[in-house]
């Protein structure tokens, strides 16, 4: 599976540059963290070189009432400009941000969202009531603009996160959005914040489509083992046997075996036993795919747990491969030292 978070950063880089993602697709190899630092610097450059203009615009604020700002903006200011200017104006006039936002349509706010300066969002976010943002967040979900929505999660306060989750009925969209949060640490914080029964509803949407399954597995594989176990169990309990086979087929087809093995290393024994009992897993071609993925990504823990429940050649095949991988790793280590 190509790295979902890196792909999200690539889309954000393209949005920052105002080009289709294909124009920068070749940079995906740089990885999520590098793409993020590159995008942030470019974004800062674009904002900072207009800071004098934004400062002058800010001095206009006392001349223009909130209603007029909203009306004129929506009528004639393109989202690129409104988004770029909004942060600077909001920071200079924090008391007015609420008033202006409440007069803007959710559609216009969603149009402007990709162009906001994230540095100013971090400053402003705590003072904006979530009720003002929920309609725009739902509009982003309707547009499937999960990448844009995801970076708001980086800055939302705990109270705002709970309100946003409650106010967004599209739980599949929330799963997509949450899976794109950049930092693993922040992702863990967000997931820990939500009550289990609300998380369960989100996690269960993972079985609705291959894309959602990829988002769900990517998210689970980035969590601490304890949390991945809790949520992984919720996911596996929701699957009947046919559903589990379908998941395994999707995982192989979408190149997501390493993520599944990470989750398999964490979940409780029942789920591991069910994976091992799935007839698709023990097909020789499938088994080879799993062994190859474990070799390539060093994900033996999950596969060895599965192997404990396999009898006959399938179990022996995995154990032989694991021993051989351990031997090669040992000899490479010895050579290196």
């Amino acid at each position, binding site marked *: 599976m190509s790295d979902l978070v890196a792909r999200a950063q690539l889309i954000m880089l393209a949005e920052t540059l105002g080009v289709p993602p294909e124009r*920068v697709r*070749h*940079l995906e190899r740089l990885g999520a963290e*590098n793409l993020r630092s590159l995008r942030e610097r470019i974004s800062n450059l674009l904002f900072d070189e207009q800071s004098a203009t934004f400062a002058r615009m800010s001095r206009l604020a006392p001349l*223009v009432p909130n209603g007029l700002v909203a009306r004129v903006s929506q009528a004639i*200011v393109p989202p690129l400009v409104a988004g770029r200017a909004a942060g600077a104006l909001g920071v200079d006039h924090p008391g007015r941000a609420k008033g202006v936002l409440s007069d803007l349509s959710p559609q216009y706010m969603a149009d402007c969202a990709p162009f906001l300066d994230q540095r100013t969002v971090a400053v402003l976010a705590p003072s904006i009531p979530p009720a003002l943002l929920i309609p725009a967040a739902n509009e982003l979900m309707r547009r499937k603009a999960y990448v844009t929505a995801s970076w708001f999660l980086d800055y939302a306060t705990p109270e705002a996160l709970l309100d946003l989750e409650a106010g967004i009925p599209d739980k599949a969209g929330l799963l997509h959005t949450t899976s794109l949060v950049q930092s693993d640490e922040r992702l863990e914080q967000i997931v820990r914040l939500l009550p289990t029964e609300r998380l369960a509803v989100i996690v269960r949407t993972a079985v609705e489509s291959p894309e959602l399954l990829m988002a769900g597995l990517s998210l689970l594989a980035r969590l601490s083992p304890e949390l991945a176990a809790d949520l992984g169990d919720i996911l596996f309990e929701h699957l009947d046997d046919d559903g589990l086979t379908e998941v395994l087929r999707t995982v192989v087809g979408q190149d997501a075996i390493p993520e599944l093995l990470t989750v398999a290393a964490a979940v409780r024994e029942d789920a591991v036993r069910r994976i091992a009992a799935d007839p698709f897993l023990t097909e020789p071609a499938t088994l080879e795919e799993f062994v190859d993925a474990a070799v390539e990504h060093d994900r033996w823990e999950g596969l060895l747990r599965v192997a404990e429940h396999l009898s006959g050649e399938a179990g022996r095949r995995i154990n032989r491969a694991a021993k051989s991988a351990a031997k090669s790793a040992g000899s490479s280590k010895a050579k290196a030292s």
Partner: protein
Amino acid sequence: MRDRNVDAKTALRKQLGPDLAVLDLLTEQESAELQVLIDDARATQRKALDASISEVLGRLPRLARGPARKIMFG
């Protein structure tokens, strides 16, 4: 305006910061392509801002237009 004699990676470093490690991972051609995209984005932003400011000033209440123009253009 960028000095065309300076190689693309050096120009990018100057614009984005000498400590930006990811630039080491770009080829010279990728650096040059990225530089073009950044220049285009800057130009688009400038044009869009200028056009919007003129339009917004035209929509302000008549009494506010003079002071607003003074603030924006001196």
